[in-house]
């Protein structure tokens, strides 16, 4: 099932880390003012992986406005002048996809799909089988990402962005509290202790934790859950495992964080959330790499913390098998009814299996899964958020090397993640014991998951 063994991936990515370490000594690239800036003009010539036959046709992609695939589309058009790439702005493209499926017409050529939905729709048999093109590049693509598009031995989409989570933090704010620095081998309980002191002395939070338990705060559970080797479901997606020993232990860690009272209690992406970041009230947070794009758009002056962040491995949880977590990250998919699969596959290949495509999407702010790019060009990726001398790409690669190949984001993952807010707050407040609360949570997901799988048949 696993196309590339873990060790092999470690080897190539390890090379990347070494290269990055070297590059860190060189003066870092000039920071771009905006992550969304189209970088099509700076595409480097790379060996053409795409067949050189003249491509022709119109490609329609649905996704949110300001999208890495849009940038890739512009670059693709430049390379193949007879191709037209179009992205109508779609606020709720998931709904539009369902309606178009029902109507039997009007589907776009490609959409940007969350991992759990790729698994769901692969089971529904509505996605285009892109095994041939992915297989061709299997060795060059991040294995943990590959498994997200794999179902019954076939690939149902082109792996999109990799999202290993790191701890992001502000040394200046932590120092101001007279604690720190946060070392790489900091234990979780030490981290919480530090969070308490930072909060007491500077009113800044070292982690995010909304009391409704959705958005970024969920990472206080999801990170230890992943780190300890937990899984929401098994590999088939049929067994729900989230309420086992690991789940309870992870929830225990989340409760410990809540009990400090030191977290930022603001809705994710709400004005107070951004306000806290810009007004230096957020000294740290668990974060996926793609958050960099959003932070950079909002944090635009040194007073707001521009160039003052660091990223590194998350704190050590006793008994952990990994020091990261996967959150978000999408896959580029098409539909089985698509009339021009060759053109679609060529675009997919260009976007995530060539240096040019990886460069464009990487400049936008996501981390493409293309290992040759990660090894050579990732270290030059532009950024304005982290300290000038900080080897932030090296830290991302470190986290990438911690990624598990036995973590499954099956259809049940979406249900489980969506239901966190329903069950966790009562456990945090202590109204329910973690044992009872997790059991209730698990049973709910079990029942909903069984019904979903039944309806997918």
């Amino acid at each position, binding site marked *: 099932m696993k196309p590339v063994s873990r060790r092999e991936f470690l080897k190539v990515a390890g090379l990347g880390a070494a290269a990055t370490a070297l590059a860190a000594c060189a003066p870092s690239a000039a920071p771009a003012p*905006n992550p969304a800036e189209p970088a099509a003009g700076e595409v480097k010539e790379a060996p053409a992986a795409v067949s050189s036959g003249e491509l022709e046709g119109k490609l329609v992609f649905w996704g949110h406005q300001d999208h890495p695939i*849009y940038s890739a589309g512009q670059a693709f058009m430049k390379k193949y002048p007879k191709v037209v790439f179009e992205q109508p702005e779609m606020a*709720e493209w998931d709904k539009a996809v369902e309606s178009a499926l*029902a*109507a039997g017409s*009007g589907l776009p050529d490609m959409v940007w799909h969350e991992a759990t939905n790729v698994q769901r729709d692969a089971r529904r048999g509505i996605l285009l089988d892109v095994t041939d093109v992915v297989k061709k590049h299997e060795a060059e693509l991040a294995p943990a990402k590959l498994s997200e598009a794999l179902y019954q031995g076939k690939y149902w989409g082109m792996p999109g962005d990799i999202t290993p989570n790191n701890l992001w933090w502000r040394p200046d704010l932590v120092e101001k509290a007279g604690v720190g620095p946060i070392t790489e081998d900091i234990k979780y309980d030490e981290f919480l202790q530090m969070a308490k002191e930072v909060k007491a002395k500077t009113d800044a939070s070292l982690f995010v934790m909304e009391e409704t338990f959705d958005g970024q705060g969920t990472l206080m559970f999801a990170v230890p859950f992943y780190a300890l080797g937990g899984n929401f479901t098994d590999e088939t997606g049929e067994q729900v495992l989230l309420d086992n020993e690991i789940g309870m232990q992870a929830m225990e860690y989340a409760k410990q964080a809540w009990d400090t009272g030191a977290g930022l209690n603001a809705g994710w992406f709400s*004005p*107070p959330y*951004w306000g806290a970041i810009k007004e230096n009230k957020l000294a740290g947070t668990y974060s996926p790499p793609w958050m960099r794009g959003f932070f950079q758009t909002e944090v635009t002056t040194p007073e707001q913390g521009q160039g003052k962040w660091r990223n590194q491995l998350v704190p050590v949880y006793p008994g952990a098998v990994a020091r990261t977590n996967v959150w978000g990250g999408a896959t580029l998919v098409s539909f089985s009814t698509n009339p021009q699969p060759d053109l679609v596959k060529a675009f997919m290949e260009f976007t995530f299996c060539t240096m040019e495509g990886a460069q464009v999407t990487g400049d936008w702010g996501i981390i493409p899964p293309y290992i040759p790019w990660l090894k050579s060009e990732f270290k030059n990726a532009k950024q304005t958020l982290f300290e000038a001398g900080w080897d932030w790409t090296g830290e991302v690669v470190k986290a990438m090397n911690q990624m598990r190949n036995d973590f499954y984001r099956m259809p049940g993952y979406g249900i489980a993640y969506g239901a966190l807010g329903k069950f966790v707050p009562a456990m945090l407040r202590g109204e329910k014991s973690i044992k009872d609360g997790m059991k209730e949570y698990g049973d709910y997901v079990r029942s909903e998951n069984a019904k979903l799988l039944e309806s997918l048949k």
Partner: protein
Amino acid sequence: MATQMSSAATVPVPTRPAVKTRRSVNARQVIRYGLLYAFLIALSIIFLFPFYSMVIGSMMPKDELFRLYPVLWPPDGPTLTAYRLLLKIDVTTTIQNLERFHILRYIFNSLLLATVAVLLQVFFNTLAGYVFAKRQFPFKNQLFAFILLTMLMPTAINFVPFYILIGRLGWMNTYLPFWIPGAASAFGIFMMRQFIVSTIPDELIDSATIDGASQIMIVTRIVMPIMAGGMVVLGILGFVSVYNEFVLSSLILKDNDIRTVQVALANFKGTSIRAPMYDLMFAGSVMATIPLLLIFFVFQRKIIQGIMSGAIKG
């Protein structure tokens, strides 16, 4: 209303008003109206506040919108940057696709969409409402009950099949799905029936019938002038809901040139994987709301004029 008219006639009208209590009545009136104003003004402030937030929000840089504690007034004074971006007045931007964004065009589209829809709705619903309120004919009650029954079905069930239907009719990327199916609605017929029942006396219709007026003449010459107020109410409600409709429009109107303003603005809303662009969204919403407010302000006078100037007294 028939009874109402006759009862009004039977009340004995005294020839002299009660003069001696006049002064105290006036004092009471002053206090009453004073309290009324105080209450209405207090309430107005509460009702104005979110609108104020939107307007002032549209004049703030995004940094001021994204604050830990919200601000009531931008510290550096209001700015029109967001409007300039939307109208593309000497501003360069890195926001993808913004060069294809034509807000005035979208507002015009929405106005066109809503105007035609409302004209059809008001006409057909008033027609049917009148018939159900004032006419007697076989199976009237069953037919009316059927209309009420159709209101009970949750609209979401209709959604997928309706969409399929629109596709088969070839109405994708046209305004027809917003004009035709809603031209006669259960809500509108029910509302107009209730309005007409409580407003137009039977005698008026009867005398017109005796005078030989055709039904269509009765509707257009007698009912509609009297019901102008009710029709305006229905029209305004219909206009705003069509103008602000989002879900269906976003699925049916995909071409850039025919999109409505709500569909276009939704792109600034952000999703779970993109932060919202509040500044553009607020400014765009203010621009989209202005035509609605103008229409409302102009037409709301009509609501009260209605019957007093109408045919009943004449």
